[in-house]
């Protein structure tokens, strides 16, 4: 509707593909291609094999996958609980107070993840709470990092939620807790699952804070990928990266299935 001339249209599309494909599609294809290869010195990878995947789905890699999944699920659930609670509480506040809560819960986005890692390391390597060397310090850092995103998505959904529903419920005699449980939360469910998916994906790919914190027996996938590339095992690293992407995608897909079932309008 912006460009009407046929020739001009094709020119625009050609430029789009020239920018889009190399920049965005190529990196993913390269990682995918490399994961099936043993050499890459020409235009195409060579020495096709599935051995990388055998290495990427057993032993230490398999354990890293479990570690990542457990971390991501736990952190997402915590973040969703805290973020939803905070967003609901903020929605009931006066504008001035709500602004403060917004700023507080957005802050972890602005603070570098490395610094979040450093601060958690500093704070929980000393009494009263000693978490250093345990898996909990990793899960804690992930929770802090993704809570901000959970808070933001639930807050945005609450703004869009038509107050007519809760008012209709109140006029029918339902006290606030009943309205929350039977009306507001069910109506928010699609946004809650979307927020959960986002938190999960972010946690699965988290590297910065994790690098500062991970104990030897709790190595998530990103750290393993870094370790592999650092010692030059690029092709195995790619295979592990593909496993990471696949796990993330499967989880997101499952969440979006729940979401379509939960959306009523």
């Amino acid at each position, binding site marked *: 509707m912006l460009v009407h001339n046929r020739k001009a249209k094709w020119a625009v599309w050609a430029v789009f593909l020239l920018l889009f494909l190399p920049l965005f599609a190529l990196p993913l294809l390269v990682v995918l291609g490399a994961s099936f290869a043993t050499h890459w010195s020409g235009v195409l990878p060579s020495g096709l094999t599935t051995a990388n995947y055998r290495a990427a789905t057993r032993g230490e890699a398999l354990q890293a996958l479990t570690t990542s999944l457990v971390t991501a699920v736990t952190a997402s659930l915590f973040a969703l609980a805290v973020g939803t609670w905070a967003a609901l509480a903020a929605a009931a506040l006066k504008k001035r107070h709500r602004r403060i809560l917004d700023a507080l819960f957005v802050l972890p986005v602005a603070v570098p993840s490395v610094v979040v890692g450093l601060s958690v390391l500093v704070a929980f390597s000393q009494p009263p709470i000693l978490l250093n060397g345990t898996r909990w310090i990793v899960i804690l850092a992930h929770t802090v990092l993704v809570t901000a995103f959970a808070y933001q998505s639930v807050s945005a959904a609450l703004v869009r939620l*038509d107050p*007519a*529903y809760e*008012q*209709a*419920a*109140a*006029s*029918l*005699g*339902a*006290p*606030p807790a*009943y*309205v929350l449980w*039977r*009306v507001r939360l*069910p*109506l928010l*469910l699609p946004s809650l699952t979307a927020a959960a998916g986002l938190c999960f994906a972010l946690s699965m790919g988290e590297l910065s804070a994790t690098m500062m914190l991970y104990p030897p027996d709790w190595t998530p996938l990103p750290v393993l990928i870094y370790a592999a590339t650092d010692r030059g095992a690029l092709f195995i690293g790619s295979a592990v990266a593909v496993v990471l992407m696949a796990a993330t995608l499967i989880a997101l897909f499952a969440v979006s299935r729940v979401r379509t079932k939960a959306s*009523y*309008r």
Partner: protein
Amino acid sequence: MGIRFDSVTVAYDGNVVLDSLDLTVEPGEVMALLGPSGSGKTTALRAVAGFVRPSSGRVFLGDRDVTDLPPHRRGIGMVVQQYALFPHMRVEDNVAFGLKARRTAKSEIRRRVAEALEMTGMGAYARRFPRELSGGQQQRVAIARALAIRPDVLLLDEPLSALDAQLRSGMLAELARLHRELPDVSILYVTHDQVEALTLADRIAVMDAARLQQCGTPRELYRAPKSEFTASFVGGANLLPVTVGAGGVSFAGTELKVDTTEVVAGARATLCVRPHLVGLGDGPNQLMGTVREIQWRGATHRLYVEVDGHSVMADLRELKHPPAHGDTVRLHFAPDDAVLLPAGVSHG
């Protein structure tokens, strides 16, 4: 149970949206709040429901002062413009919602849900979701949901404005029937549509600019409006500037006989005559003018006649030989069909 507003004022950020409203709805009465948007009528309704808190004044339901009660303790039924049916619940669960929230016994819930759905003719749709219903059906479910809790007071906020014209007149008849079946329920009905108000209400409260302009039966408002606003908002009206004389008024040099007992001689006033009470040809209170426009409306002709620079409307039974554009015609009206209003108070 009745509703009473005791000089209720509502203000947002210093903006007065409802200015000391005094109004009583008797038990079992249908009261329409009629006015243009921004007139404060919805605010008044929401003050009864408990969603806005008066800055001053009290709201009573029966003898109970509910001003400080949260909405869920007020025991009112409410239906709003967009129905607000819970999209994640079936029709029956929507209707049962208020009863479940009150922990009513299961068997009683079933009985009352069936009863409310039957009353609104929605019995066959109990298992449907709201999105599977038409607008008119959703409307009925919303009413059933409000009735299921057996409220003494029903608040209706523009309940028909989301429906098309044909459905609307059907639903009007339905609402009238429901009220006959539930004669003890007081209804506060907010609308900007005078037809809905005239059809349904026992009394109409006309609102404008955050204030109550006039309250009375539809007939009173129509026959004896007290202000230009009421006269023009409830039914159409010719509003002519006149000077009051002894036993009549003068308009554009013509003496007209009307009842002047309530006005001082020599004062300026506005003469209100309904278009359908204006006749064509000779008669009492004659006005001479030039036809500026003729509209044929099937059963009637509407004439716009210019009389000394003022346009006078006349609705006449379909004319066999209507006058032509530019013809000079005589109009007349009976002295007791005209009302004298104070000059230009609201629309001066």
